[in-house]
């Protein structure tokens, strides 16, 4: 009988995955697994390492210190009037670390999880989502550390000037996560198919770090190129982060919106692409 009513069946497996049926309900069904994956990563990464948690704190501070020495003291690049200059580098290095960890983890989804993906079905998106949540957990420690340093300067030296925009911080983090996840999902499907893309991506990542305002402020960019820089979602995120805590310039609302828009478009594209390919890709991993 060719007239099987679709409703009679709960599921259908066929060659073509639909583009838009993202099956959010199914992902919700697996929320316990999502939480358990995050938990696994947290436990596993801090088991048997004394320095583990401390390293998470130290990493942005040491990075900021190196940036300070090289880019501020030696290369003499502007820190947009933020004093002490080392504080200028902290937001950029924290956001960059978070972004690159999320992106790298997401883009390696298929390779890292091949051993599970080859044996069991669950919505594959659970794996990159858990990766992003795990890095958000690490980020929260770095932020606490940042607040402590910030408070120290605020109370002892009184030379930093917070604004109400501090409340935007969760949004900035969400935006970074969305951007990293969206880009990561697309790259994950591509690298699973073409392994040598890995090297190119690593190279591009290093390049991308320097076109993001991490070791310099946007204010030193020549006016005619500025718009290109604002197209990069990280630019508005980092600049807003700085101005919220240091009031070195007003918050550029429209660029923040643009950044949000770009990130969301990228995420949607990533979700659709990932969903379309998530199972087929396993034939070549």
């Amino acid at each position, binding site marked *: 009988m060719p007239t*099987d009513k679709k409703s*009679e*069946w*709960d*599921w*259908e*497996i*066929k*060659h073509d*995955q639909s583009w838009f049926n993202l099956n959010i309900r199914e992902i919700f*069904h*697996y929320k*316990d*697994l999502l939480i*358990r*994956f995050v*938990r*696994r990563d947290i*436990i*596993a990464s801090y*088991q*048997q390492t004394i320095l583990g948690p401390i390293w998470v704190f130290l990493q942005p501070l040491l990075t900021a210190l190196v940036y300070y020495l090289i880019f501020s003291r030696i290369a003499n690049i502007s820190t947009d009037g933020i004093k002490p200059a080392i504080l200028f580098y902290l937001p950029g290095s924290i956001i960059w670390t978070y972004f690159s960890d999320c992106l790298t983890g997401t883009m390696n989804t298929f390779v890292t999880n*091949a*051993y*599970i*993906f*080859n*044996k*069991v*079905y*669950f919505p594959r998106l659970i794996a990159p989502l858990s990766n992003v949540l795990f890095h958000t957990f690490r980020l929260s420690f770095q932020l606490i550390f940042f607040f402590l340093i910030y408070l120290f300067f605020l109370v002892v030296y009184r030379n930093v000037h917070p604004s109400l925009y501090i409340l935007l911080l969760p949004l900035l983090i969400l935006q970074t996560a969305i951007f990293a996840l969206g880009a990561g999902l697309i790259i994950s499907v591509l690298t699973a*198919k*073409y*392994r040598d893309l890995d090297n190119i991506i690593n190279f591009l990542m290093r390049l991308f770090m320097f076109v993001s305002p991490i070791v310099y402020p946007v204010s030193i960019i020549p006016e005619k190129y500025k718009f290109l820089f604002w197209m990069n979602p990280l630019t508005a995120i980092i600049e807003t982060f700085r101005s919220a805590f240091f009031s070195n310039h007003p918050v550029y609302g429209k660029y923040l919106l643009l950044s949000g828009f770009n990130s969301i478009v990228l995420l949607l594209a990533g979700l659709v692409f990932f969903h379309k390919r998530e*199972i*087929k890709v*396993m*034939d*070549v*991993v």
Partner: protein
Amino acid sequence: MSNILIKAENISKFYRLGLLGSRTLKEDIKNWWQNKTMDENFMDPGFGSSKNFIWALKNINFEVSHGEVLGFLGRNGAGKSTLLKIISRITLPTKGRILGKGRTASLLEVGTGFHGELTGRENIFLNGHILGMKKKEIESKFDEIVDFSGVEQFLDTPVKRYSSGMYVRLAFAVAAHLDPEILIVDEVLAVGDAEFQRKCIGKMKEVSSQKGKTILFVSHNMQAVRNLCHRAIVLNKGEIVDMGNPEAVIANYLKSEKTQHLLHEFQDKNSAPGNEFIRIKKVELIPDYVNESEVIDIRTRLTIQFEFWYDVNEANADLIVGVHLLNFNGDYIFDVASPRTVYEPGLIRGTCEIPGHFLNDGAYYISIVFVKNISQRLFYYESCLSFDVEDYRDNAGWYGKWVGVVRPNFPVLLQPVEN
């Protein structure tokens, strides 16, 4: 409302060969390829094949009803595992579709996703969630799982410190408490010791008969398929070649898989099976037929005769030749050996006699092992002979399967003691 839970329509699966660094695919296909190269002329008009691509499955159609246990048989590379992977949604079919009802859980290995750094307790939850259980479900079954696994003492120890036995027991305990409508099991029974396998089969039987679950099941263990399944499907080169009652399907399968090999003879020493120490010249099974029908039955006396070139030139190196008889479940029926003796290099002949009225009816094969100084295996000539033993009953009043591995006619005598 029909009773059909799964309906596969024209499932075909296409694999491209040799592209990219594909790890798992390579393994999947390697076995297939070995079969393939043996039969170069095989060409299906609808599903052409070349060195660059293959059809791992071709137009597979079947239905599974509620509560049915369906077994899949076939050689390595026949497509069984690919089919289960498609039903499990791990890989997609190239053509066709599968429609289904109800929650499925696949058990393509035990302990998927176990993490060595995590404790047994953590892993129960992790593995349970991966297999599709919800938190509440695992919590409510937690004690049962722990009981079943028998690793209660080590629940808070990282599983990397577990023995492999404990690890498998814990992993299986989680899997055994899955509660889906459809369970997909692939060769899980191949791991672990006999005790563990018994436990697995017991549990599967319980799940299917008491809870009325639907199970799709791949195994090389004919006994397990015979015991558990209501229906069996045989795959060969990606196609369904037989389907139906397991007893009949298994019988046909074994018949097609084995060709009766009663004689192998090799004239050229260098191309004969063996190695630098042993070269086989001839192995032969000589039946002493009871009548002209030339059928080996339970009464037939069988002589195994073999000749081999022996080339170990060491003083005092002694040789033992063992003859193994196995049935097609892979059970050893016996292992008999020649006495330890030192031989000069040269051609040696051996004989071994299996008396009539000894073997039960069934399919058997023989392997011959050559051992130096008790411990060093020189050569194992595996499954070199195979044969069938047919049933024979004189005063036939009963036609059921005569049980037992052997069928001796030891007398059983009765004597009236009191009237």
